[in-house]
């Protein structure tokens, strides 16, 4: 009897989990499916017929390519800026005990606990007050601001098991602080930094709310989609959405595979890093 109940519960949980996963993936399937749709009018809501022409000419819609290009430029700058600033904070928070560390930890958490709309509105208040024209650079500033906390969280998670003795060993072997950082510290934290770069790039390219407040006349990809949603979204938007999706999944898989390998080779790798 209990065996039957246990069997049922075991599979009930699995069925529930698979349903939840299906729910998470359903809209993604719809996005990809409708990138092959051949709509009759302006609205890409109902299935009309299969076509490859949207994929053949993804940027055939005026304004789509410049918007995506702007988004990519912003995301690249933001990923570099936020990762640099956030990694330094994470290093300080994990590796040093210092006065004010608790306060710094809470402070880092605050931007993540602020609704995007409040952050967007407050930044716009600042730019309006000092008469700073909103546009490309204000978007970059806004994105770096909300990305920093995510970078700190990501890098910190990887830093927790960090062995400080490796750095001390390098210093004992007459490496100066700069060499120690480049040859020992950075290689050790590289996977975390890479994840942070990917995450901040993804968050930047996806952001709508804060961008909407601080964009001026600049149009990013999400802003383009927002504008298009009022008059009918062309299927090319689904094509670009699908490309972004597959590119991101591909990069994540690559990162997972990369991290699985060093786990096995961790011991010799750290040994080499310390010796060389």
């Amino acid at each position, binding site marked *: 009897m209990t065996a039957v109940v246990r069997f049922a519960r075991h599979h009930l*949980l*699995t069925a529930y*989990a698979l349903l*939840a*996963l299906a*729910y*998470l*993936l359903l*809209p*993604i399937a*719809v*996005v990809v499916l*409708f990138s092959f749709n051949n709509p009759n009018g302006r609205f*890409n*809501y*109902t299935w009309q017929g299969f076509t490859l022409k949207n994929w053949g000419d993804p940027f055939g819609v005026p304004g789509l390519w410049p918007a995506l290009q702007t988004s990519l430029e912003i995301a690249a700058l933001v990923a570099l800026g936020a990762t640099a*600033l*956030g990694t*330094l*904070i994470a*290093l*300080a928070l994990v590796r*040093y005990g*210092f006065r004010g560390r608790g306060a*710094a930890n809470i*402070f880092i958490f605050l931007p993540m*606990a602020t*609704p*995007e*709309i*409040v952050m967007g*509105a*407050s*930044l*716009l*208040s*600042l730019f*309006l*007050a000092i008469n700073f024209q909103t546009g490309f650079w204000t978007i970059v*500033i806004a994105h*770096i*601001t909300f990305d920093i906390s995510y970078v700190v969280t990501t890098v910190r998670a990887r830093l927790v098991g960090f062995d400080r003795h490796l750095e001390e060993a390098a210093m004992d072997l007459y490496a100066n602080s700069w060499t120690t950082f480049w040859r020992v510290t950075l290689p050790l934290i590289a996977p975390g930094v890479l994840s942070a770069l990917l995450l901040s790039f*993804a968050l930047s390219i*996806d952001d*709508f*709310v804060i961008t*909407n*407040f601080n964009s001026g006349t600049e149009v990013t990809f*999400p802003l383009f*989609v927002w504008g298009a*949603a009022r008059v009918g*979204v062309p299927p090319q*938007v689904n094509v670009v*959405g699908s490309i*972004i*999706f597959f590119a991101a*999944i591909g990069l*994540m*898989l690559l990162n*997972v595979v990369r991290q699985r390998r060093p786990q096995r080779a961790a011991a010799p790798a750290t040994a080499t890093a310390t010796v060389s």
Partner: protein
Amino acid sequence: MGFLHRHRWLTPYGLLAAGLGWLAVFFVVPMYYLAATSLKSGDIDFGYAFTWAWGNYAHALGRYQEQLLRSLEYAGIATLAAFLISYPLAYWIAFRGGRWKNVLLLLVIAPFFVTYLIRTLAWQTILADDGPVAGFLRTIGVLGADGRLLATSFAVVAGITYNFLPFMALPLYASLEQVDKRLVEAAEDLYASRPVAFFKVTFPLSLPGVFAGTMLTFIPAAGDFINAQLLGTPQQAMIGNVIQSRFLVLNDYPEASALSLVLMLAIVGIVVVYARALGTERLGT
């Protein structure tokens, strides 16, 4: 070795300086300007001036109380729904995932790789009046002949639930993953039934994840306006819709700022009460 080596205690502050300085200038200072703007009066043509106009708050609250309460209600329901959907999922991945854990986690966060607006528009397609879901529900009689899914509160709450679900699932997974399986076994050895072992051992140990997940879902949900805009009608407008349109369309900066701060305070209040409640519960078990 020079200055840095002799003054090692300075190193952490040096590392923090750039990042925290950035946040001070572009996160803290803007909050000051938001607060200052909320106390201004005037109009967009002749400019706004600071006059300690506390009336903005009374006016904003009186006029948009409905949208504010609706935001908190929708966010609360969506948070609960996200919890109910993702707790079993996170539990399943943590305890039964085996070597597929990383792949399953990637599937959980997969929605984040589709642009927010595009995945919300996909829900528009799924819930559309002539879409398959509405058609099916009409056939089996759950939905009336001219019943709609799109443009209802249901659609908005469902959209919010979907969009922030990974924020709930990831912290839940992280805390469930860390639960020491030996503790659960020990409870079962001591004749606790499986449900008792779950509610006395596993669930209490996962409470940090429950707290983090509910916060990370509730906060962005309460400030969201995209789901209400794309999946609802003005009858489902949330406080985010009001702030967005007053700020960017009507350029009524003072009232929009006042509303932003009210939203912020409401969220902080709810978080504090919630943290207290969860904290005492944890002490009690």
